[in-house]
């Protein structure tokens, strides 16, 4: 017996929720970034899995989207971490609880 699509989706859902957990529960800005990266990776996993399990042959759309998504995620990580450093310089902290300038 080989793993079905459901199992892959289950793993990616679990990964997504762990990422969400990291983004929601930790106070450190870097943890939030790590969580977001995990959620993105879960999405990529879904793309590739759907491509692999769909009727063949067909153009590798899922793979291409995953590649582009990784590239975008890399850019996002670079900017995000730069923001973390800039915030740290400015507020002397990376604890997001203390960053409440948006408070209405």
């Amino acid at each position, binding site marked *: 017996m080989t793993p079905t699509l459901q199992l892959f989706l289950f793993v990616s859902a679990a990964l997504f929720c762990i990422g*969400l957990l990291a983004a929601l529960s930790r106070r450190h800005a870097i943890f939030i970034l790590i969580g977001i990266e995990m959620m993105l990776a879960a999405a990529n996993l879904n793309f590739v899995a759907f491509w692999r399990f769909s009727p063949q042959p067909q153009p590798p759309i899922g793979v291409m989207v995953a590649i582009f998504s990784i590239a975008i995620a890399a850019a996002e990580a670079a900017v995000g971490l730069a923001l973390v450093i800039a915030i740290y310089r400015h507020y002397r902290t990376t604890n997001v609880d203390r960053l409440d300038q948006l408070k209405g």
Partner: protein
Amino acid sequence: MSWIVTSLWLIPAAPLAASLIILSLANSRRSAAAALAIIGQIAALTLSILAFLPTLQAPGYRSVHNFTWFTFGEQALRIGWVLDSLAAAMLVMIALVGLCIFVFSAGYMADDKNLTRFFAYLSFFSGAMLGVVIANSLLLLFVFWELVGLASYLLIGFWIHKPSAAAAAKKAFITTRIGDLGFFVGILWLYGGSGTLLFYDGGKGCLETAGLLGLGASATFVALLIFCGAVGKSGQFPLHIWLPDAMEGPTPVSALVHAATMVAAGVFLVARVYPLFSFGAIDGVTPSLVVVVSIGTITALMASLIALGQFDIKRILAYSTVSQLGLMMVSLGVGGVAAGMMHLIAHGFFKALLFLGAGSVIHGCHHEQDIRKMGGLRSLMPISFLTYAIGMMTLSGVPFFFSGGWTKEEILHATAHWHASHIPHYLMLAGVVLTALYMTRQMIYIFFGNRRAASENVHESPPIMTLPLIVLAICSIAFSVVLTPAWRWLHSYLTGEPAHFDIALLVQPMLFVSLALVAVGIGLGFVMYGKAGQLATGRVRPTGGQNRHRTAEMDPLERAQPALFHFLENKMWLDEIYDRTVVAWSRMAAHVSDWMDRHFWDGLVRGFAGLGQLFGIFSANFDERWINVRVDETMTGTRRLGRVMSAWHSGQIQTYLGMLAVGMLALLILYAWLA
């Protein structure tokens, strides 16, 4: 079709572009402006000659380039340009005369502080005039026609600081506008009748058989309405009054616009739409052509008579222009289209020559224009004198050597063979005598006799001014080669018949007749005015002055026939008559309208305003009592809601993210529940 036909628009475009560039120059870039204008004109001349060449290949050459301008409803308005012998000959003439005058202006206007503006206007005029010539659509022609009118207005009023110049510009614009109104109505009628405004359109144009048949009997009225425009532009009776006043403009302008080219546009227009005039002709006579001949005859005679009574050097030339234009109209009317156009082209050269010569004289005499204050300039300004004499003899129609003589002879031939009446023929013969007479009078006053007030410190003009004079003088003489009856090249070029050389035809009876008439005119002039050249130095009776007992200083004609001379000096009181009638009626109508405005319409407007005020008061109350209160309530509610909402915004991004996740979950549940 040759490439030059499709790109014929380049000819007017070159001076127009030069004009635009000059307008954008700073006022101090004087030599650049002059150079640009002259370059634009040279470009136009080159292209004109290029356009002239294909028309030589075949007799009756005509080729058109039409295209759709815009479409409204189901009808497309098409315009285009035409290249035929008529257009090509006019193009070359206008471009060449224009070039001479541009060069002359560079010298004449050298001291004017608005030189750049002047050249911009001149180039603009030149472009518009070339556009009139190439237009293949009555509408396009009308557009350029009005542009020409605008250029004329700007140039007459160029010395805007002079009230007389401003008034003259206004007069020219309004007077020609009266004619153009008729022209425009004619265009509309023509469009209604034939459904097209293109002249030539492969058999469908309004000048071709199909279009003319569509018009039927109304062709006469259309032709007469279009003739209104020509009357205004070409200074024909009764709308000639603006042309002498237009001499307020700088002299090169008078030469280019009000002698050589623009006023010729009216004659050109009639020649262009000639099929409309001659449609349904019996023996070459139609009602519309009879009108053209009558108007032309009246104009020609009246203007040459008035010219006898004038003392302003440029006004004499202006009236001479009016009379020559009348002569051309007569020629067109009696069927001598080619003769009329030949005279038009020859006239373009020699009248430009005369005006530039006058400009040279005026320039030499420190801007004095009264011929009684000049005199004896013959030896002081030899080049001006010689060229002016050539121009004078060409205008007088001295046969054999001068182009004007041959063309005038053609016209006299044409009038002699008119079937309707011989009166115009005899009147034109009288006109020849009169022309020679007033030109001799002018020559004697300016160049002969003793030196008078304005002759002090006179100098010959610089080469930049004399060179165009010489070129134009040579043109005036050399042009006669293609005009003689022995080899009527230009005639056959314009009519499309083959030309052949026959020296036996050179001498015709009419040659002796006109020779005799011119001799009579010039001889009479010397007899009458020979003494008048000896006016006392500096003691000149001001025009319309009181001390008319000094017979010695009076004009010989004034001495002999004071009443007649006074009548002529005051231009047959036509200006005064118009002042008492047309202008006075307009004023009266204006007064009546004014009174109506103040008392009747104003009352109505006040009444409506009162109603509006009442309504306004009502609305204001409604606003205050009802709408304002509701709006206030809404505002209070919004503010309360805002306070509640702002409490939710903690500024904690993780709270936001959590909310996002909860929202996603809620959507999922909602979706599952609905499915």
